C-alpha cells in the first residue's frame, strides 16, 4: 500500500511509470525500485527459492534479496530491490517452471526429506544414468536465462584519483568525508544507493554539507567492488567502472541486518526491520498492515517508531532479551502494544494459499510449547548486524570477535586503511558521527594533510546484536541461508558428518555460496558451528571474502580492451598490393599477396619462384634492430653472443647466436661492424624487446664503456633478392654493388641514407636495405618501380619461410624450443668456447661432456609421396617410441618434393637414412635424412658475382 508523502521520500509522484510483472500490469513512480513498486501494489510473492521453490518476498531491500530476481527480456537476474523502476519493464521471476504463481518446481518442497545437505554427493553415482541426471540438474539449477543473441557491449573504464576514498555514504561515511575534506583532502565518497544518507534518519544536514563541499566528489549508484593492492578500488557505476587509486581508504560500509531463524521465517511478509523502514521512508510504501516486531536491540525500537508513524498496526513486540532499557520499553507501552520480553517466535504461519505470513506462534526462550498465536501479515526482525567488512578483509585487516557487541570488528588495520561506523562496531548514532570524524581525519593525516584528531569514541553499552537469534523446530524449514535454501538441520547435519570447520562446512553445505555471498547467512552459520563445536565465534573464524562485492556486468569488466597493433612504414603499400595480413606478435605482416583467381598456395609458390628466377622484395622491418657504440662495444657483444666479433672487419657482417645462462639458444640475428667502436645488429621479431631489455640489464650490471640504442621502430628494412636483384638496384644507389658476400655498406639508396648488407637470407643474391622509417615507403616504391621491367614480385612471410627452409635456415622458436642448445640445432660451429666469457659458456661446457639428447636434421619425403604430408609437431617414431618431432615442413617447388626439419635421436641423423613420422591418424610416413641446404647446397647462387 502507498502511504501519503513521506519527508525526504525518493519517489517522484509526478512521474508514474507503467510496468508488467508476471503478465500483470502495475504502476509505480520514478524513484521506485521494482520491489518497492510491487510492494506498493500489494504484491508479496516476488520469486521462488532455489531448491524448494518456496514462495519468497523481500527480505532486506538492501541488495541481497536473491529470491526477488527477475528477467526482463534478454537481461537476466535483475535484483528487484536494487533495480530502479523503468517505464515499460516486462518482468518475470527467474527460477520457476511455469509461472511464479503456478510453479511446477514447488513440488520439490515436498521432496525435501530426500534433498538433505550435500545430497548430490550421496546420490547420482551410477554412470549409466548420469547423463539423465546432468540434464535434469542443468534444467533445474541456475537462475535466469542468457540471451545468446544479445549484442556484445563494452563500456570503457576510466582511471580516477583521490586522496581519501570513503566507501559508504551513511552517517559515519558522511562524517569521515567532511572531516577529511576539511583537512584539505580530495575526497571521493561512494554509496551504492541512489542517494546519500544510509539507513539512518537524521543525516540530511550532513548530506547537504557533503554535496556542497568543493573537495568531495560523490558517486551514488556506485559500489566499491573490492580492495586491491595499494588502495586500488574499482568503483562500479551504472555506466562503467572507475579504477580509483586512493592514498587512503575509509571503509564506512556499515553492516547487514541479520535475520532471525525460526520455522517459516522465509514466508513473504517476514523481513528485516531496516528493509521495512527503508520502504516506508524512501518509497512511501506500507509493507504490511499488521505486524509482529521481533526485537533484540535499540534499532528495533527506532524502527518501531517508524512503523507506528506509518500507520502500521503492531500486534506485539517480541524481544529476545529478558530485560531491556526502560526507554525502549516505554515506546510499546505508550502505544498499548503488548511486549513479550524474553520470548521468541517459534514459527511463522502461512496464509491459506501459502503465499504470505498470516500469523506467528511465540513462546518464552527455550520453551517449545507456544503460549500465544498472533495474527499478522508481516513480521519485521531486528535482532542484530554483521559488518560489511569484505573490503577490510581483502585489504588484509585482522579482525577479532567483540563479545560485547557480538560482532567481528577490525583489530589491526593495514597502513592507510581506516574503518568507522557499524563496520567498526560503532552503532549509536552520535558515536557513529564521532567515529567517522576520527577516521576521516586520520585518513587525511595519512596523506600528509593535517594531523589525526584524537577523538575518543564511547564503546557501546548495549549489544546491538543478539548472540543466538536461532530457534530450532522439529519440522524444520527454519532457514539460515535464503539463497541456497539451507535450514538449521542442514548445517547441524553437515557438522555431524564431519564438516566441522568453517571452510569445510561452507563448501559441503554451500552456505554463503549463493548470489548474496553470505551477507545474511554467514554470521548465523558461524554461530551454529561455534555452538556445535563448543568454540567461540572468534575461534571459528570467517571464510575469505573475495571480490566482487556485488555482481558486476560483463560489459563493465570487458571495458574497451586495448590490443595495440604495430605496422611497418610500408603498410599501406602492402595493403594496396593485395597483402593478406597475419599477426606476428603485435605486428601485422603480409602472409602473402593475393592474386585474383589464384589459391593461397599458388600465390606463395609464385612469389618463391619469382625470387628464385627473377627478383623479389620483402619487408623485414619487424626485425629487432639495435645499435651499440663505444670502446667496449665489441667486447660487450662477445660476452652476450656465442661467436667472436672483436676481429670482425669493419664493413663485414657475421651471423649471431644468443644463448641464456643455461646454454639454451634464445635468439639469432646478424651483426654488422660499421666502425671499430660501432656495430648495428638485428634480432628476431619476437625477441627484439626482450633482447634489448636483457642487454640493458647486463650492461647495468657490467657498466662497460658502451651504449645500446633500440632502433627497431626507427628503421625500415627490406630485402631485395634474386638473380635480377642487382640489376634492379643498379642506378638507385651509390654503393658499389660488387660488395663481397656478407659485407655491409653505408650509402644512399634512392637519395636516402641507408645501410646495405649482403646476406644469404633466402639463398639468392640479395641485399638487406635499412633506412630511417620515414623513407621506408618511398624506397620500397622506387625499388618496385625499378623492378617492374624484371618482373619483381613482393613476397610475404610464407614465401620467405619456404625459401629459407630450402636453404636449411632454422627459425628460433620454431626449430628450436626451450631446451635447444647450439649443438642440437647444428650451430656448434658458431660457438667459440675459447673466449674468456660469454653468457651460457660454462653451461655449454658441461653439456658438451654429456651425450647429446637429440639432433635437428633436414629431411625429405620421397619425390613420389602421395597422400597427406606430416605437419609441424608430428612425432618421429622409432621402434614404437617417440624419437623426436617435425619442426618445419613445406612443399618445395624448387625440389618438387616435401622438405623439412625434425629432431631425431642421435644415431638416426646419418644422411640418407630413413625414419618414420606418425600422422594424426596414426599412419606412418617414411622420411629420409638430408643434408642442408636442400637447394643449391654449395651456396653458389647467394655468393655469386654478377
Amino acid at each position, binding site marked *: 500500500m502507498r502511504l501519503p508523502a513521506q519527508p525526504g521520500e525518493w519517489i517522484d509522484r509526478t512521474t508514474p511509470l507503467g510496468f508488467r510483472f508476471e503478465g500483470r500490469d502495475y504502476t509505480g513512480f520514478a524513484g521506485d525500485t521494482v520491489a518497492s513498486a510491487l510492494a506498493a501494489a500489494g504484491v508479496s510473492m516476488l520469486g521462488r527459492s532455489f531448491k524448494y521453490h518456496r514462495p519468497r518476498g523481500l527480505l532486506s531491500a538492501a541488495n541481497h534479496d536473491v529470491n526477488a530476481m527477475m528477467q526482463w527480456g534478454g537481461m537476466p537476474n535483475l535484483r528487484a530491490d536494487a533495480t530502479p523502476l*523503468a517505464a515499460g519493464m516486462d518482468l518475470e521471476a527467474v527460477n520457476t517452471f511455469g509461472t511464479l504463481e503456478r510453479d511446477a518446481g514447488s513440488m520439490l518442497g515436498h521432496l525435501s526429506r530426500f534433498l538433505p545437505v550435500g545430497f548430490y554427493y550421496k546420490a547420482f553415482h551410477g554412470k549409466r544414468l548420469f547423463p539423465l541426471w546432468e540434464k535434469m540438474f542443468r534444467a533445474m539449477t541456475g537462475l535466469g536465462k542468457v540471451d545468446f543473441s544479445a549484442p556484445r557491449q563494452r563500456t570503457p573504464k576510466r582511471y580516477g584519483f583521490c586522496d581519501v576514498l570513503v566507501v559508504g555514504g551513511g552517517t559515519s561515511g558522511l562524517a569521515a568525508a567532511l572531516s577529511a575534506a576539511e583537512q584539505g583532502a580530495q575526497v571521493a565518497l561512494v554509496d551504492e544507493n541512489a542517494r546519500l544518507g544510509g539507513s539512518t534518519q537524521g543525516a540530511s544536514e550532513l548530506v547537504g554539507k557533503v554535496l556542497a563541499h568543493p573537495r568531495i566528489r560523490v558517486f551514488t549508484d556506485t559500489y566499491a567492488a573490492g580492495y586491491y593492492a595499494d588502495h586500488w578500488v574499482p568503483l562500479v557505476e551504472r555506466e562503467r567502472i572507475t579504477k580509483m587509486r586512493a592514498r587512503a581508504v575509509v571503509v564506512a560500509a556499515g553492516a547487514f541486518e541479520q535475520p532471525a531463524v525460526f520455522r517459516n521465517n522465509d514466508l513473504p511478509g517476514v523481513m528485516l526491520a531496516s528493509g521495512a523502514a527503508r520502504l516506508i521512508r524512501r518509497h512511501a510504501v506500507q509493507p504490511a498492515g499488521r505486524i509482529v516486531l521481533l526485537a533484540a536491540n535499540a534499532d528495533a525500537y527506532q524502527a518501531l517508531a517508524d512503523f507506528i508513524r506509518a500507520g502500521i498496526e503492531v500486534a506485539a513486540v517480541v524481544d529476545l532479551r529478558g530485560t531491556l532499557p526502560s526507554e525502549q520499553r516505554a515506546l510499546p507501552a505508550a502505544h498499548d502494544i503488548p511486549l513479550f520480553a524474553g520470548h521468541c517466535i517459534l514459527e511463522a504461519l502461512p496464509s491459506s494459499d501459502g503465499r504470505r505470513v498470516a500469523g506467528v506462534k511465540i513462546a518464552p526462550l527455550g520453551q517449545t510449547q507456544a503460549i500465544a498465536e498472533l495474527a499478522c501479515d508481516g513480521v519485521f526482525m531486528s535482532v542484530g548486524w554483521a559488518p560489511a567488512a569484505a573490503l577490510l578483509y581483502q585489504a588484509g585487516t585482522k579482525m577479532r570477535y567483540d563479545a560485547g557487541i557480538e560482532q567481528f570488528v577490525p583489530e589491526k588495520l593495514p597502513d592507510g586503511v581506516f574503518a568507522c561506523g557499524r563496520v567498526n562496531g560503532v552503532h549509536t548514532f552520535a558515536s557513529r558521527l564521532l567515529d567517522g570524524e576520527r577516521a576521516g581525519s586520520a585518513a587525511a593525516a595519512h596523506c600528509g594533510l593535517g594531523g589525526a584528531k584524537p577523538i575518543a569514541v564511547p564503546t557501546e553499552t548495549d549489544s546491538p546484536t543478539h548472540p543466538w537469534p536461532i530457534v530450532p523446530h522439529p519440522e524444520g524449514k527454519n532457514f539460515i541461508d535464503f539463497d541456497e535454501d539451507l535450514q538449521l538441520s542442514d548445517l547441524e547435519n553437515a557438522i555431524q558428518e564431519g564438516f566441522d570447520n568453517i571452510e569445510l562446512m561452507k563448501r559441503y553445505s554451500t552456505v554463503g555460496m549463493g548470489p548474496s555471498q553470505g551477507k545474511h547467512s554467514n554470521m548465523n552459520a558461524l554461530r551454529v558451528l561455534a555452538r556445535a563445536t563448543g568454540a567461540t565465534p572468534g575461534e571459528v573464524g570467517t571464510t575469505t571474502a573475495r571480490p566482487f562485492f556485488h555482481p558486476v556486468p560483463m560489459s563493465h569488466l570487458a571495458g574497451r580492451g586495448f590490443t595495440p597493433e*604495430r605496422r611497418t612504414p610500408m603498410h599501406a603499400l602492402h595493403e594496396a598490393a593485395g597483402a593478406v595480413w597475419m599477426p606476428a606478435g603485435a605486428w601485422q605482416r603480409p602472409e602473402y599477396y593475393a592474386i585474383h583467381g589464384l589459391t593461397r598456395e599458388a600465390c606463395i609458390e609464385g612469389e618463391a619462384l619469382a625470387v628464385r628466377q627473377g627478383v623479389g622484395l620483402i619487408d623485414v622491418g619487424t626485425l629487432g634492430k639495435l645499435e651499440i657504440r663505444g670502446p667496449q662495444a665489441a667486447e660487450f657483444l662477445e660476452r652476450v653472443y656465442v661467436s667472436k666479433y672483436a676481429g670482425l672487419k669493419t664493413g663485414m657482417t657475421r651471423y649471431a647466436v644468443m644463448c641464456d645462462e643455461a646454454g639454451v639458444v634464445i635468439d639469432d640475428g646478424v651483426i654488422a661492424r660499421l666502425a671499430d667502436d660501432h656495430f648495428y645488429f638485428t634480432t628476431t621479431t619476437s625477441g627484439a624487446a626482450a633482447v634489448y631489455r636483457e642487454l640493458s640489464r647486463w650492461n647495468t650490471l657490467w657498466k662497460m664503456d658502451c651504449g645500446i640504442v633500440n632502433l627497431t621502430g*626507427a628503421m625500415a628494412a627490406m630485402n631485395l633478392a634474386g638473380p635480377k636483384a642487382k640489376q634492379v638496384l643498379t642506378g638507385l644507389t651509390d654503393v658499389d654493388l660488387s660488395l663481397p658476400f656478407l659485407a655491409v655498406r653505408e650509402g644512399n639508396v634512392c637519395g636516402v641514407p641507408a645501410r646495405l648488407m649482403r646476406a644469404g637470407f633466402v639463398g639468392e643474391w640479395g641485399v638487406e636495405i635499412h633506412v630511417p622509417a*620515414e623513407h621506408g615507403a618511398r624506397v620500397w616504391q622506387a625499388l618496385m618501380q625499378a623492378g617492374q621491367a624484371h618482373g619483381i614480385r613482393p613476397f610475404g612471410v610464407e614465401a620467405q619461410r619456404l625459401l629459407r627452409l630450402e636453404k636449411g635456415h632454422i627459425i628460433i622458436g620454431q626449430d628450436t624450443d626451450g631446451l635447444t642448445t647450439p649443438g642440437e640445432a647444428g650451430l656448434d660451429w658458431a660457438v667459440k668456447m675459447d673466449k674468456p666469457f660469454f653468457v651460457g659458456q660454462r653451461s655449454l661446457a658441461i653439456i658438451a661432456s654429456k651425450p647429446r639428447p637429440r639432433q635437428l636434421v633436414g629431411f625429405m619425403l620421397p619425390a613420389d609421396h602421395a597422400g597427406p604430408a606430416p605437419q609441424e609437431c608430428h612425432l618421429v617414431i622409432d621402434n614404437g617410441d617417440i624419437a623426436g618431432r617435425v619442426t618445419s615442413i613445406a612443399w618445395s617447388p624448387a625440389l618438387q618434393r616435401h622438405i623439412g626439419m625434425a629432431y631425431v635421436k642421435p644415431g638416426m641423423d646419418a644422411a640418407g637414412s630413413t625414419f618414420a613420422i606418425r600422422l594424426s591418424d596414426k599412419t606412418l610416413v617414411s622420411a629420409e635424412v638430408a643434408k642442408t641446404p636442400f637447394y643449391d647446397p654449395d651456396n653458389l647462387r647467394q655468393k655469386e658475382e654478377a
Partner: protein
Amino acid sequence: MSAINIADVSRTPRAGVKGAGAAAWLAALGLPVPDAPNTWLSIEGGLIARLGLAEFLVEGPASAKLAAPPAHGVYPVLRQDTALVAAGERLDELLAEICSVDFQALGPAAQPVVLTTMAGVTVVAIPAEESGMPALRLWCDSTWGAWFCQTLAEVAGELIQPIPTNHQGATS
C-alpha cells in the same frame, strides 16, 4: 575549439641522444640542458626534454646540431616518432580512459616529462597549455603511431558522442 583536438606534428624536425656524456655534449653544442631527470626546457622553435636520467629529445631547428659527431659516452638516437598535440576541455577525460598516471597531480609549473604507456603504447608525454586549454604533447614510436592515433580518435569520438548503451535494467 572542439572538446578534444588532436594534431599530428610528426614532421617537426627532431633528434635524440643518450649516454653519460650526452648532457655535457649538448651543453658544448650550445643547448640549454635540463638539470633534473624528466624535465624539459623551451628553446627557440622547440624544446629539449630530458627523458629519464641520461637521454634527450631535441625538437625544432636546433635538432640539426645533434648531427655533430658524437663524443665519448654519447650515443645518437635516431628519432622517428609519431608526434601529436592533444588539446581541449575534455582532454582529461580522454587521458582518464587510457593512462593510469595522475596528470592533475603533476603541476605543469615544474615542466615535467612523463615516460609511460597510454592505451598500451609506450609514450613520452609533456603536459602543456594551448590557448588556456589543457594540452599534451605526445611522442610514440611511429610503428605504433597509426594504431595509436586511430585509438585516440575513437576514444575521443565516443566521449563527445557517446554510443547509446542498453540501460535496460542495468544492475548495480
